[in-house]
């Protein structure tokens, strides 16, 4: 059994989880005198226990937490008994701080879920158990707390235990243990209480000391993640990284993935000297026999039992940000030691934590859990999350803000991605460009409805056409009558609308055309996606800059008036945002220029960029 246990505590507001951790520290004699003195003073000043020691104040260390009497973020506490060491992550209960709870749960192997005996199993309780099991925690102790407030009633405890145990059978758990406790009085936390003579089971601390959470076996197939190529001089080339699974040994035949080259481990280097073998969890530097092309993010794996390599998966996603997950939007994902482009398809379903049922969803909102097919820009070595947390997990990062917006767990690979290979074609973009006598590109017009995008784009196309260029104009309204007629105007549909148009534009660039795209395209993220789909220098963003008031005054289609009357929902500029380009390649101010002058300016700009 592992001598270190990482566990989380979670529960609803006021269930007393911080109190419980404080009690564990206190009764394990792990609180220093100055901590206790500070606690006594704090308890008098801001405590909620009438001047008695308020243990919650030990862990709720942020000013806002003390003021509001709640837990906002994870607090990590360290303690040890004779039997074991512990890292306790005290996680917030409120749904609003789910992201902080999953932060704590992602590195934990056991969970203590608290509930208030007076309230019984709540939605939050189910939610916490569900999230814990989803994050791979297989051992849960349910602490039925505040039993002192129901007179240490056996009936109350039995009924709550039965209800929770029944719920838990449908989760992916190995073990559920229910313990009747009073954190405030210290009953069945560390020592047994006389108050519960009817209870013959374990105390909470005893459970923590004895729970066997397994762990990886030394003879599992080896996986070594390359973090850093170590080249101090021309004579040494090593791969610094971590043994994620199994044991790395000199003489091991390994595959370097995803490139799939074979080699042999000849040295395992550390500052303290070379090793013959490095067990799971070791951070070492491996030297290979052959000159292979391995880089950061690659995995060295047992040659006869390697992990899969794929770029499309079904995954569980937990959304962590106020801005929804939009299917088709281009994000980044960090997976292992690699960061790559990432998109999610329309969720297959959202997990309803109450009913454990599946609800349909077009987006994932903050704190929601869903299942979707996801796509990485490049193939990655992976194992399913159940088998290997390190190679089966990823975080989703917003390209513009760099915020960590989501977390994902790989269920399985989509066979499609392995079997559908890109066909190599002989007549390529360059050949077509030579035949046409000009380079292909995308000229992307963005701006509010009524800004004059289509009028200007039409004039630009006339000029280019007259000069013998091969052009095509993709117009927002026209495309919505055909290719995109199934899409509406929600944020999610707008993203998909632009994704399809960007893909079509990219195909037309391959075909050798100058593609004029006239779309409101309100989000920076999707315009960035469109730019990413073509080569460097093949994309020109034209900002048709018209203030909202001017566009609304023009209102050539009468749409603003309708939107103002509330007859048109999700109208850009009115009740749906427009994110103006920060650094457009060309900007035309339609309050100062006629459409003809604006078109001239665009053509001149394109010439300046060498695009026509």
């Amino acid at each position, binding site marked *: 059994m592992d*001598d*270190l246990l990482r566990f989380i505590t979670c529960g609803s507001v006021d269930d007393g989880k911080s109190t419980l951790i404080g009690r564990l520290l206190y009764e394990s004699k792990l609180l*220093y*005198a*100055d*901590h206790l003195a500070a606690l006594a003073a704090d308890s008098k000043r801001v405590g909620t226990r009438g001047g008695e020691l308020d243990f919650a104040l*030990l*862990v*709720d*260390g*942020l*000013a*806002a937490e*003390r003021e509001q009497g709640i837990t*906002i*973020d994870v*607090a*990590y506490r*360290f303690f040890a008994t004779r039997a074991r060491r512990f*890292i306790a992550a005290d996680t917030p209960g409120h749904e609003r701080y789910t*992201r*902080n709870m*999953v*932060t704590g749960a992602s*590195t934990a192997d056991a969970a203590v879920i608290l509930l208030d005996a007076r309230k019984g199993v709540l939605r939050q309780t189910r939610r916490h158990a569900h999230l814990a099991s989803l994050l791979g925690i297989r051992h849960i102790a349910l602490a039925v707390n505040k039993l002192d407030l129901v007179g240490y009633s056996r009936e109350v405890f039995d009924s709550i235990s039965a209800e929770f145990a029944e719920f838990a059978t449908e989760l992916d758990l190995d073990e559920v243990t229910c313990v009747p406790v009073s954190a405030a009085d210290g009953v069945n936390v560390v020592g047994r209480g006389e108050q519960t003579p009817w209870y013959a089971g374990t105390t909470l601390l005893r459970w923590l000391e004895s729970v066997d959470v397994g762990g990886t076996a*030394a003879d599992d197939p080896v996986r070594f993640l390359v*973090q*850093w190529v*170590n*080249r*101090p001089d021309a004579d*040494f080339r*090593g791969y610094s*990284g*971590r043994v994620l699974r199994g*044991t790395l040994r000199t003489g091991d035949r390994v595959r370097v993935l995803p490139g799939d080259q074979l080699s042999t481990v000849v040295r395992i*280097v*550390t*500052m*303290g000297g070379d090793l013959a*073998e490095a*067990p*799971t*969890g*070791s*951070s070492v*530097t491996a030297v290979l026999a052959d000159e292979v092309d391995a880089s*950061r993010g690659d995995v060295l794996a047992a040659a006869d039992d390697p992990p899969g390599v794929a770029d499309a998966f079904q995954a569980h996603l937990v959304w962590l940000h106020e801005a929804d997950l939009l299917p088709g939007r281009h994000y*980044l994902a*960090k997976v292992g*030691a690699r960061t790559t482009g990432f998109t999610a398809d329309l969720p297959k379903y959202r997990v309803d934590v109450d009913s454990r049922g599946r609800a349909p969803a077009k987006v994932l909102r903050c704190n929601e859990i869903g299942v979707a097919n996801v796509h990485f820009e490049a193939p990655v070595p992976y194992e399913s999350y159940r088998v290997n*947390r*390190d190679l089966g*997990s990823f*975080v989703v*990062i917003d390209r513009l803000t*760099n*915020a*960590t917006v989501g*977390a994902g767990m790989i269920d399985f690979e989509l066979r499609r991605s392995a079997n559908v290979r890109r066909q190599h074609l002989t007549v390529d973009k360059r050949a077509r460009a030579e035949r046409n006598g000009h380079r292909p590109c995308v000229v992307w017009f963005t701006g509010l409805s009524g800004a004059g995008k289509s009028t200007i784009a039409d004039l630009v196309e006339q000029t280019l056409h007259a000069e013998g260029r091969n052009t095509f104009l993709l117009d927002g309204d026209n495309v919505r009558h055909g290719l995109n007629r199934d899409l509406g105007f929600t944020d999610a549909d707008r993203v998909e609308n632009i994704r399809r148009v960007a893909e079509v534009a990219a195909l037309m660039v391959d075909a050798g055309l100058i593609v004029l795209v006239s779309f409101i395209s309100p989000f920076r993220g999707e315009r960035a996606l469109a730019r990413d789909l073509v080569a460097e220098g093949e994309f020109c963003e034209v900002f048709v800059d018209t203030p909202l008031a001017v566009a609304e005054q023009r209102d050539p289609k009468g749409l603003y008036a309708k939107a103002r009357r509330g007859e048109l929902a999700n109208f850009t500029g009115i009740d749906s945002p427009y994110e103006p380009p920060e650094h457009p390649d060309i900007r035309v101010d339609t309050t100062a220029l006629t459409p003809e002058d604006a078109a001239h300016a665009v053509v001149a700009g394109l010439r300046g960029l060498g695009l026509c």
Partner: protein
Amino acid sequence: MTLDHLARLEADSIDIVREAVAESARPVLLYSIGKDSSVLLHLARKAFHPSRPPFPLLHVDTTWKFREMIEFRDKTVATLGLDLIVHRNPECVALGVNPFDHGSARHTDLWKTRGLRQALDEHRFDLAFGGARRDEEASRAKERVFSFRSAQHRWDPKNQRPELWRLYNARVAPGESIRVFPLSNWTELDVWRYVDRERIPVVPLYFAARRPVVDRDGMLIVVDDDRMPLRDGEEPTPELVRFRTLGCYPLTGAVRSTAADVPEIIEEMRTATTSERQGRAIDHDQHGSMERKKQEGYF
């Protein structure tokens, strides 16, 4: 064969140090000369061996550190052949800021917090390692391993990036930065056991010796030089003391102790009844002071 507790802590920290370097453009190690910095530096060397750590050390000096600290710093850097940047806030140098005339809070804010921000800006570092541990203080217990700072170096404790598994997100826009704490999950006892096992040199001030002490406001202050104004009746007397943490000498309380080597320190810790930061005047300036200082950019 499995890793024991210290070996696992070491491997986790090395993993963190490597991720940080791989994901940043201009990393730096905040070197404060204490035992935690010594361990952090040792781990950084291990992480990249046989290469040298691919970043410089930065010491934000206040001119009020113990002389033995500065000697130890210079010897360490020379022995290991490392790059060291020493920054002293030029405004403080000009004004002669000190804890006696300006008070401990302003002294710390001007020399350390502002000094650090100046140095990070001047060298355009986008990532800085620090030796802080979560067991030190309640607001530190809440901090991520990779902790985001705005372009103004501010920490927003209510809006931290989620940090799942070992997938650290070090991406920043120009001007923003990340503070990385590889020792987050170490305790004070872990640090000393590791110092013992790896034979890591530390400043001799951690070991008990006879030092000239005055008892001021309940703290044992070792009078390190003649700049410290003595109050009426104060007479430095030699006492057998040592330090559990090191900072500016007028603000750091010694403890009476006979522990003269690392094993004796570890033995003393088993029976200790006070925490290490108890001797740090700056933590007690006002309630929630560490969180406030951290928000303003303190390490």
